């Protein structure tokens, strides 16, 4: 089989899996059915089976129809006790009293819990989709090898998609080093998440649905990274958004999940607004959307136009990669099942923004302004999100803000022209963040659905493998030497230093410290200490199924080793050789613009005992310091954080803590301005429509009627009046004739 065919098959296989799951999935899953007639009895079972589980379910169970709820009330969510949520959560069940047959337990908000006492369900729908993704992974590896080791660049043309005058778009694939790097992450993490989900989603009636979405996501994501032109990128971009929507809202009975899904999609659309315009502008100015042709022609454009294009494209990236100010959707997206968080919201989809900017590097490189914006947004978001992550109690939210922060790191790298470093970090982050999310899923699963770290603790003893792999991931994230994250992050920091962005460098270092701190805060709060949750829940705590643990172990390997394999020596590692071609022109073009120091001809190659080495040491030590602080505060002296907050100068502590806990109120602001404002404007326009626009229409009729009524009054029924009227008419006509006489 030729490699071209393999490339074409890579996205096709998950698509086939999707179709298979949609068409046959529901028939393959045998779930004990509760007939409509006996719903009363079975309902009691159902209720009992669910009591005590449930996700965060902080949102009250009532359906919110009357008020716009684009943004679930975060404040409420944060402040309410998780245990209150437990009671509310099963509003599903409460609401079902006697009326709703309990014949479906999908969408209830938490997976992994089978109706007790009923016949054991059997699921077979995961088989084919997972196998197909497996094959696709194998193909990807072949392609990857061909590209990385064989140095090939593949163009695969499938068919002409849209031909409208000069606007001609082909469905075509491009595989170069950059794509290959993403292919590696996407297909590997994708496959592992599939396997992981078999265990994680076991017992959920919507299993086939879940796998259908996952496969569709794989298809879309592969399309996104394989596409040969901007429009295909956009197509994949939107399609992953759809899948993200479907998967975040997978447990649709939770209003919070449904709201989060919509929020994710809508916020992404805000970014797409810019992205789409950017694409149109590219085509309007260059007449093509093909990557190579665009990059070849971009230099000939007016610099302002290039800047506008770049900024518009970047708007899309900001949305997709959850950068400030469009970061608000990602933490909420944690309402989805954890494998989804691992796959989409950590390892793959959110990287699309980084990928896109990297892919469009010749455009960005032409525009210093755009580069500054990218870097600025990146640096700001990095510290902003990290600061929020410090105080979050929900384990998944910690990871979500961490993801935002790490993605921001990548943008920061892109913005300063450190393309390779950004992609390097993308790859390593894909692995370790996937691992961390899957691990957190394992924790949640083991802890009967608990997500609040304040009610965890001591899991180390009962979930050994989860603990071990999580620590590996955490070390990587914290940037401890030898783990993947260390190399990629330090490369970014080193590049920023080398290129003279000292302020950025300083911020990066602080963020690295914060990252290490909150990562290990998470580890210590969950695995160490004593169990702080409900006593009976402790009895349920157990190590997860092998299908869940094995992907963790497998992922731990690249997490531990990828940095060594790809990143040594720093700035000259293996990954540089793949990506050199892709970024070659940008390096050239960008050199003069971006960095005075490089333009001055200074060499900043890596020297172990020079500046480079120093930077390495600094990077490593802030990581260690962060871990140490976390250890001190959360293991040795749990009262310390509280004291610290109180002792902050000027009494800022509690305020800052509250602001961080509440994500600096950005969500609330958006909820107020956009959601409420939108409804307000909508209602105002509707009023205008009904009263003014339609009022004019009905008013015309009314006037005619009124006028008719007036004339009608002349019809008195009296001959003498009629005679008078006629005579008057006669007089008028005669006058008219005399007046108009020629």
């Amino acid at each position, binding site marked *: 089989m030729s490699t071209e065919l393999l490339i074409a098959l890579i996205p096709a296989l998950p698509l086939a899996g999707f179709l298979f799951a949609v068409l046959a999935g529901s028939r393959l899953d045998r779930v004990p059915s509760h007939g409509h007639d006996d719903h009363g009895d079975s309902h009691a079972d159902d209720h009992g089976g669910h009591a005590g589980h449930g996700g965060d379910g902080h949102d009250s169970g009532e359906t919110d129809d009357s008020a716009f709820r684009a943004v679930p009330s975060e404040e409420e969510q944060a402040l309410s006790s998780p245990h209150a949520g437990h009671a509310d959560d099963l509003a599903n069940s409460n609401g079902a009293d006697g009326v709703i047959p309990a014949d479906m337990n999908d969408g209830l908000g938490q997976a992994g819990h089978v109706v007790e006492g009923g016949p054991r369900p059997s699921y077979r729908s995961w088989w084919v989709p997972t196998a197909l993704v497996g094959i696709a992974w194998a193909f990807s590896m072949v392609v990857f090898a061909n590209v990385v080791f064989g140095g090939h660049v593949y163009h695969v043309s499938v068919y002409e998609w849209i031909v409208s005058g000069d606007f001609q778009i082909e469905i075509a694939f491009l595989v170069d080093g950059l794509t290959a790097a993403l292919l590696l992450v996407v297909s590997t993490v994708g496959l592992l998440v599939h396997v992981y989900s078999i265990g994680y989603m076991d017992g959920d009636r919507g299993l086939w649905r879940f796998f259908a979405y996952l496969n569709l996501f794989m298809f879309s994501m592969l399309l996104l990274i394989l596409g040969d032109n901007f429009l295909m990128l956009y197509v994949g971009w939107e399609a992953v958004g759809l899948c993200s929507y479907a998967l975040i809202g997978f447990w649709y009975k939770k209003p919070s999940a449904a709201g989060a899904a919509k929020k994710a999609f809508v916020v992404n659309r805000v970014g797409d607004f810019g992205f789409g315009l950017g694409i149109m502008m590219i085509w309007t100015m260059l007449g093509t959307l093909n990557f190579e042709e665009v990059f070849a022609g971009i230099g000939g454009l007016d610099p302002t136009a290039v800047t506008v294009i770049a900024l518009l494209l970047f708007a899309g990236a900001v949305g997709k990669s959850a950068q400030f100010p469009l970061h608000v959707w990602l933490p909420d997206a944690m309402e989805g099942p954890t494998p989804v968080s691992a796959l989409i919201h950590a390892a793959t989809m959110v990287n699309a923004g980084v990928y896109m900017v990297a892919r469009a590097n010749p455009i960005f490189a032409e525009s210093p302004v755009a580069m500054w914006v990218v870097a600025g947004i990146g640096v700001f978001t990095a510290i902003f999100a990290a600061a929020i992550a410090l105080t979050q109690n929900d384990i998944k939210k910690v990871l979500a803000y961490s993801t935002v922060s790490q993605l921001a790191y990548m943008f920061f790298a892109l913005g300063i022209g450190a393309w390779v470093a950004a992609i390097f970090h993308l790859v390593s982050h894909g692995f370790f963040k996937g691992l961390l999310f899957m691990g957190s899923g394992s924790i949640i699963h083991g802890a009967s659905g608990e997500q609040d770290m304040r009610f965890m603790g001591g899991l180390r003893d009962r979930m050994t493998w989860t603990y071990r792999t999580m620590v590996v991931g955490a070390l990587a994230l914290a940037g401890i030497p030898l783990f993947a994250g260390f190399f990629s992050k330090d490369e970014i920091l080193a590049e920023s230093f080398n290129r003279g962005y000292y302020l950025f460098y300083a911020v990066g270092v602080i963020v690295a410290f914060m990252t290490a701190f909150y990562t290990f805060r998470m580890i210590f709060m969950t695995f160490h200490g004593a169990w702080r949750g409900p006593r009976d829940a402790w009895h349920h705590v157990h190590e997860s199924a092998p299908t869940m643990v094995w992907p963790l172990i497998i992922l731990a390997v690249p997490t531990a080793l990828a940095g060594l394999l790809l990143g040594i020596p720093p700035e000259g590692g293996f990954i540089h050789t793949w990506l050199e071609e892709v970024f070659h022109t940008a390096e050239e073009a960008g050199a003069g613009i971006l960095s005075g120091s490089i333009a001055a001809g200074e060499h900043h190659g890596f020297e172990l005992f020079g500046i480079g080495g120093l930077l390495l040491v600094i990077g490593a030590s802030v990581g260690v310091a962060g871990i140490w602080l976390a250890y001190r505060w959360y293991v040795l002296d749990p009262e310390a954080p509280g004291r610290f907050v109180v002792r902050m100068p000027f009494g800022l502590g509690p305020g800052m803590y509250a602001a961080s806990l509440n994500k600096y109120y950005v969500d609330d602001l958006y909820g107020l301005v956009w959601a409420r404002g939108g409804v307000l404007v909508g209602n105002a326009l509707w009023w205008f429509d009904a009263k003014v626009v339609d009022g004019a229409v009905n008013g015309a009729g009314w006037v005619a009627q009124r006028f008719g009524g007036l004339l009608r009054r002349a019809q008195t029924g009296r001959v*003498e*009046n009629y*005679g*008078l009227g006629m*005579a*008057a008419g*006669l*007089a008028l006509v*005669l*006058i008219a004739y*005399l007046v108009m006489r020629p």
Partner: protein
Amino acid sequence: MMVCFGTLAGMYALLGAPIVAAAQVLIYLGAISVLILFAIMLTQAGDANLPRPFHPQVWVAGLVALIIVGLIGYAVTQTDWHAAVAVTAISVETIATALFTDYALPFEILSLLLLVAIIGAIYLARRPEDDEGAN
């Protein structure tokens, strides 16, 4: 009314149309006036209290009528009629000849008009209960 019709007859005679004058006397003074008097008597038999003769709109009516007369009068006076100075008398003979030769058709049609007027008047004026017998 009678006076008015009579005066008109005189004017027709002055204008050299004696036959018209004669017809005026015959038709208006004779037939129509009698008919109308008859009708008035017939209709007002039971009406003891004499109602107001005019409508409240009489002033407006007067104004409109004045305007019309004014307009017509204006036209009459402002127009050069190319009129002969003297009155051409028309003999009865001329009229008779014309009426039965050139004007035969209008004359015939007029007879139809009178016929339908009579038929209709009979139908309408007949008491409803008589219709049963007539049919």
